[in-house]
């Protein structure tokens, strides 16, 4: 190989490294990276829609069956598919956050990213933004299909839907942060946590049944979880046509607490991984 002068004549124009603009630029760069990855694989794209679509079909047919039976069951059936779609918002957003983070570890890229000017909060912001984009790719076609197949219009939840969406996504980020932190601390051996953590919420958040069904001692625990208030709120709208604003405020308040705890845990685990050098060794 022949050598040529490396820098002569090359002009590098550098933008200011600090401030909101710089942060947004770095977040944008990372989101662009995830976009490139998604675009590079058609299978990845199909997989995003495949599972929620199957889930919606299964529960949609169940709803159709129940609707054709007795009156109380028919009434209850309406909330099943709503529960499925809202649960999928939480679950898919969590998976989107965690998968993207784990893929950075699989490809041993986390060290590269965190030795660049990227701040940890910018990494978290990029993962969060990307989880919402993935969620939209997953859920928009499935929601449209739910309307055409089963006549269920998620938009019938009205403005409360936006609030439900926000609450569920915020909860998924809290879970994503905790599992990312634990993986940073314990390595990819703890990756199972990323897939299973959200399922802890499934029985406790009362996705398919009201809180009143739970035994007395479990009710206070369920009510400390933001999604419980979302599913109670959804049932209140679909069964009684009443928007319970108090439930929403509770959910948002609890989310603020969990998100703060999640971020602090992530920073704490990241600091540990930096100090003991495992940040550069993490990977397959």
């Amino acid at each position, binding site marked *: 190989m022949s050598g040529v*002068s490396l820098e002569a004549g*090359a002009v*590098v124009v*550098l933008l200011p490294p600090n401030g909101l603009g710089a942060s947004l630029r770095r977040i944008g*760069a*990372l989101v*662009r990276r995830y976009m490139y*990855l998604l675009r*590079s694989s058609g299978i990845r794209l199909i997989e995003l829609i495949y599972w929620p679509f199957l889930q919606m079909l299964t529960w949609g047919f169940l709803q159709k069956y129940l609707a054709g039976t007795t009156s109380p069951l028919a009434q209850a059936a309406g909330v099943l598919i709503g529960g499925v779609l809202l649960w999928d918002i939480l679950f898919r957003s969590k998976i989107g956050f965690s998968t993207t983070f784990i893929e950075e570890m699989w490809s041993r*890229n986390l060290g590269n990213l965190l030795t660049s000017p990227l701040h940890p909060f910018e990494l978290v912001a990029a993962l969060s933004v990307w989880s919402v984009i993935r969620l939209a790719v997953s859920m928009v076609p499935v929601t449209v299909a739910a309307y055409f197949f089963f006549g269920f219009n998620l938009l019938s939840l009205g403005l409360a839907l936006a609030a439900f969406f926000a609450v569920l996504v915020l909860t998924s980020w809290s879970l994503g942060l905790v599992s990312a932190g634990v993986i940073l601390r314990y390595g990819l051996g703890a990756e199972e946590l990323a897939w299973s953590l959200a399922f802890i919420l499934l029985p406790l958040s009362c996705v398919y049944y009201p809180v009143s069904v739970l035994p007395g001692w479990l009710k206070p625990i369920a009510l400390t979880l933001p999604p419980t208030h979302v599913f109670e709120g959804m049932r209140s709208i679909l069964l009684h046509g009443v928007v319970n604003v108090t439930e929403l405020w509770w959910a948002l308040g609890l989310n603020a607490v969990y998100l703060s705890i999640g971020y602090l845990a992530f920073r704490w685990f990241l600091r540990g991984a930096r100090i003991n050098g495992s940040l550069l060794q993490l990977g397959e």
Partner: protein
Amino acid sequence: MRLTVRQNLTVYAGLYGVANAEERIAYLGEDLQLTALLDRATGKLSAGQKTRVGLAKALLNAPELLLLDEPTASLDPDTADWIRQKLKEYARSRRATILFASHNMAEVERLADRVILLDSGRILEDETPRALIETYGRKTLEEVFLDVVRGRARRLDERDKPEAREAS
């Protein structure tokens, strides 16, 4: 991961705040003989090609301080020599400092102005390569390294100390 070389460099140009990313990538591509590889998947490149991509990534923002870990490890002698030449040229033209970790003492002897020998995080020596060779009375830095690592020789200026005489 299936990002192309150009996509990878574009992302890192964004992270490092390079405003003229396209122009810079084209320049580095040409300079590091990567132009033909820019639209190929990074994961499918050879070790030497990946090293050149890594170097392009490190030079995107033309840093004054470059940190490198074993920059020529697992490369064939031709590519390794080419990389070393590039690094020397970069340090000279940019007036940059390069701090690199290496176990290849011939490489260290050729590239470094100053050598720090470390053992379990402790600094054992901190000299120029020539001074180190002279201090140990050896011909190459590799011999000095083996002396230090295996504890089989001492610095010439310590050999006359009483404890050294007792030990021998």
